[in-house]
């Protein structure tokens, strides 16, 4: 019975791979047949060669390091701020209501609109990118952790009150553990956002990392290298997502799933 299911799953996976394989082969054949000369397209074999070349001279690895550094630094700062505010707003309804207008006034500002402000205040480099990533990450963490804290079983809060735990211990021993599975879901969503924002800032203006790498390849009229970067950025995005999904299942199992729909 179980082997049948496993077989069925393997079959599904093969079926899922058929389309991308067919597209790649057709594209390769077409590019060869027409002796493709283009500034925007390159056959898959050349893209693979360019990717291998970029690995060989470490350029793509340095770029990946720069992008991921900004991504994670911004994500960490955004998470800390978002979590602190989210927990405070979740515990204190008064605070939440008082801050509502302020939060709702700042939240809809598209993160990328802060780019020019960060640019004149901090100049090019890691700092401005990290600030923008952090700004983008604060909001989903704030909203979801606030909801997570509010949905904590009220009896747990009653216990903490009966034990007369001081506020710091109440947060550390009751609230964070109880809300952690849903907070992790928020963290996972924010990690995706952080990578997107980092790459976008690099493409728009910041001469750093993968985004700058792909822009340079485009301006150098190297479509093979440009598409190699595109593929690699896709792989990074996919890997980051898979990594966090696996971590979520490992750490929290079913508990985290309840937060996904919220």
């Amino acid at each position, binding site marked *: 019975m179980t082997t049948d299911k496993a077989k069925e799953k393997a079959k*599904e996976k093969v*079926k*899922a*791979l*058929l*389309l*991308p394989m067919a597209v790649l082969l057709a594209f390769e054949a077409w590019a060869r047949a027409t002796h493709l000369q283009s*500034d*925007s397209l390159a056959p898959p074999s050349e893209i693979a060669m360019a990717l291998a070349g970029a690995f060989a001279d470490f350029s793509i690895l340095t770029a990946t390091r720069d992008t991921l550094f900004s991504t994670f630094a911004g994500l960490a700062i955004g998470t800390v701020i978002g979590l602190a505010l989210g927990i405070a707003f979740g515990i204190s309804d008064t605070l939440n*209501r*008082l*801050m*509502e*207008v*302020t939060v*709702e*006034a*700042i939240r*809809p*500002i*598209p*993160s*990328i*609109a*802060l*780019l*020019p*402000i960060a*640019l*004149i*205040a901090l100049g090019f480099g890691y700092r401005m990118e990290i600030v923008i990533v952090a700004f983008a990450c604060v909001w989903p963490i704030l909203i979801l952790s606030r909801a997570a804290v509010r949905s904590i079983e009220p009896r747990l809060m009653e216990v903490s009150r009966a034990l007369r735990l001081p506020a710091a211990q109440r947060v550390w021993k009751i609230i964070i553990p109880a809300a952690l599975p849903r907070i992790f879901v928020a963290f996972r969503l924010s990690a*995706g956002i952080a*990578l*997107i924002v980092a*790459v*976008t800032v690099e*493409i*728009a*203006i910041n001469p750093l990392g*993968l*985004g700058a790498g*792909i*822009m340079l*390849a*485009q301006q150098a009229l190297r*479509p093979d290298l*440009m*598409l190699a*970067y*595109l593929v690699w*950025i*896709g792989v990074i*995005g*996919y890997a*980051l*997502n898979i990594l966090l999904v696996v971590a979520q299942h490992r750490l929290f199992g079913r508990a985290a799933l309840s937060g996904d729909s919220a």
Partner: protein
Amino acid sequence: MNRIATIWLWRAASFAVAASFIALWQLIANLKLVSPVFLPGPDRAWASLMRGFSNGDLWSKLAGTLEHMAYGWLAASIAGIAIGAIIGSSRIMRTYVAPSLEFLRPLPVSAIIPVAIAMLGLTQAMALFVIAFGAIWPIMLATIHGFAAVEPRLYEVARSLQMSRLAVILKIALPSASPDILAGMRLSLTVALILSVVCEILAGLDGLGHWVLLSARAFRSADLFAGVILLGVTGYVTSVAMSMAEHRLLAWQASQR
């Protein structure tokens, strides 16, 4: 005390808190704790906003951004729902095509910008392509998901009534997937605004993104803040309008439950 009065009291208090933050901002600017080159006071930002509106500069920039956003988003909505419906209503397509789409989803969509520039140049068409490409994912995936989650008995009814595939899509699947689709469209709206700003910055297209960048380059911080405030308002108003539309369009479902 009745409930409505309490709600309004809280709201007033909340506005007062926001106002005091603005006052704090003004104080910081007046005392020049942060160089006025970077941080204009709210008074200067407001004056710049009013000046921009009265001489029409900001109106045309705002219109430019809204235009990019709207065209890209509408194109993405139509294409996303159509493609999503085709994939979602067919078992074969769901097995063969949907996994590839799931694989592409975590790709940071802005990475497509250089490719679009290489193909289309720094043009309006490039911006529309990028915005539509970025905004199509949430809509398309939501449509596929919504179609897959339709109550199976409804499909059985359709089969026994011998409805055509198009009729099944239009009369059964689309209405029952509409909450998912509208949620996807709301997500896409934010994506469309962000990509509009990025494309305007990169391609120098007429719009608020270009305006804030030029203001930053010239160190006109009041104009810069005015532009950012306006972008925030745009984000807010479009998302409120979308949730109102959602509420309207889904009213029939709420009444059924």
